[in-house]
């Protein structure tokens, strides 16, 4: 396990609204994580495509790039996941994105935007933002996007709106997404960037 729930709990309670100069302690979450690919289950990607599946490909998709090894794919996915949710990544910090560090939105672990925005737009918009950000980031990295049936997708993906997925759970999903990303091009058609 790479993460602790206790860390998230402490982080949540150290960023209360209105506190100045807040600081917090969380497990470092963006350092390179060495994972043995053999220990990661390969998601089942075969399915019989239906019109209903095709209609939901804006939600249920995965990324594939040929000639990529597991470690590279995993790091790419982690980078895009961090960017998508506004975590510190490039600066090597362990922080919540700056504007939210003194708000409850910051308290929940780097969720996109603020609680006010969430109250206005709701969780569905947050989920859509995350999907779009992942598409943008992985697309720039040269990964193709391929559709999947909902049940296949749910086995190794998560939605993230107003709730935050626990970090140990998140990394397990990301590892499987990396495994899918190196599984070779599927027979289905590549989707729009």
């Amino acid at each position, binding site marked *: 396990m790479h993460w*602790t729930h*206790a*860390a998230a*709990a*402490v*982080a949540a*309670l*150290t*960023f*209360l609204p209105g*506190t*100045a*100069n*807040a*600081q*917090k*302690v*969380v*497990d*470092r979450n963006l*350092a390179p994580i060495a994972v043995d690919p053999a220990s990661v289950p390969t998601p089942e990607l075969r399915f019989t495509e239906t019109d209903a599946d095709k209609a939901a490909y804006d939600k249920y998709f995965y990324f594939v790039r040929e000639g990529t090894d597991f470690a590279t794919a995993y790091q790419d996915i982690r980078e895009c996941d961090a*960017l*998508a*949710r*506004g*975590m*510190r*990544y*490039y*600066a090597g*910090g*362990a*922080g*919540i*994105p*700056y*504007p*939210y*560090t003194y*708000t409850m*939105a910051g308290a929940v672990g*780097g*969720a*996109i*935007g*603020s609680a*006010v*925005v969430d109250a*206005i737009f709701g969780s569905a918009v947050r989920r859509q*933002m995350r999907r*779009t*950000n992942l598409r*943008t*980031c992985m*697309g*720039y*990295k*040269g990964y193709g996007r391929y559709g999947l049936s909902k049940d296949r997708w749910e086995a190794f993906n998560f939605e993230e709106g107003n709730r935050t997925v626990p970090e140990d759970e998140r990394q397990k999903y990301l590892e499987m997404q990396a495994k899918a990303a190196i599984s070779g091009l599927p027979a289905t058609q590549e989707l*729009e*960037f």
Partner: protein
Amino acid sequence: MRAIPFILSAIALAGLSTAAAAKPLETVQFKSNAAVGIDPAKAYIMVRSPGMDLELLRVATASERADYDRDKAEAFVSAKAKFERDTAKYADALKDYEIAVSNGVVNYYKPEKPIEPTEANFAFRAIESDNFVTIWAGRVFDKGGPRTVHLIAVPPGTYRIYGQILQAPNGSSSGTCMCMGSVQFDAPAGTITDMGTIHYPLAEARADKVEASWNGLTPGKGGLTSMRVEPPDSSTYVPAQLASLPRVAATYRAAGKVDNFFGVMIDRLTALPGVLVYRRDEIIDARTGTAVASN
């Protein structure tokens, strides 16, 4: 009732930093046709933009970074001391908990073991938090040209085009950051640095009901993104009031990836010929052909 002490402890942890508070940059954005005198200690940035707030990020100087590192180190020492105190309290609280449980008390709060701060897990405000500059779309200096002209006085330094960010008074933000690649430029003291024109190709194409394209680029894998910059040239409109003041064109350089501090949509600046190109998600300085490191 152990929950109350725990919450108080958390509040204390949140509030007892000895670090210096963030100091936002001092900026003045000029209103329409305001009198402009050049202060030799200040830099001035002029940009033409079609109606959306523009976010710039000033690159911290070496001396500012040293100050920041010192503040962070002091805060870390403070956090370590706090951890030692919390650890002592935790041992006592755990004993109380075990006694309570053995006596059949239900719903007794189980204390959580403090996490030791380390260099790797200790989070501190980002140095960038002191260095954002917003150029408000609503504060127009001049409307005489094809695009509204905006003028702002800022501390001299190096500025990066961060993105189009709208910050509401309630603290919420929306917009798009150029987190996956952008450009930066120097804004020296005592002169107006002309950024040229900011374009939003996708939004502008939608407004014009045309297919988005520029310089042979198209959206998606075609390389055209949600924002691009057009450096000024001799035909670029300059307000008459500024024509006689010291003014230089921004000299752009490629800028590496940067964090999504506002938690908004992510994108990258459209490639700028001779300045910024991409190799997949790698940012290349077109002048040297070398990759630019992330910030």
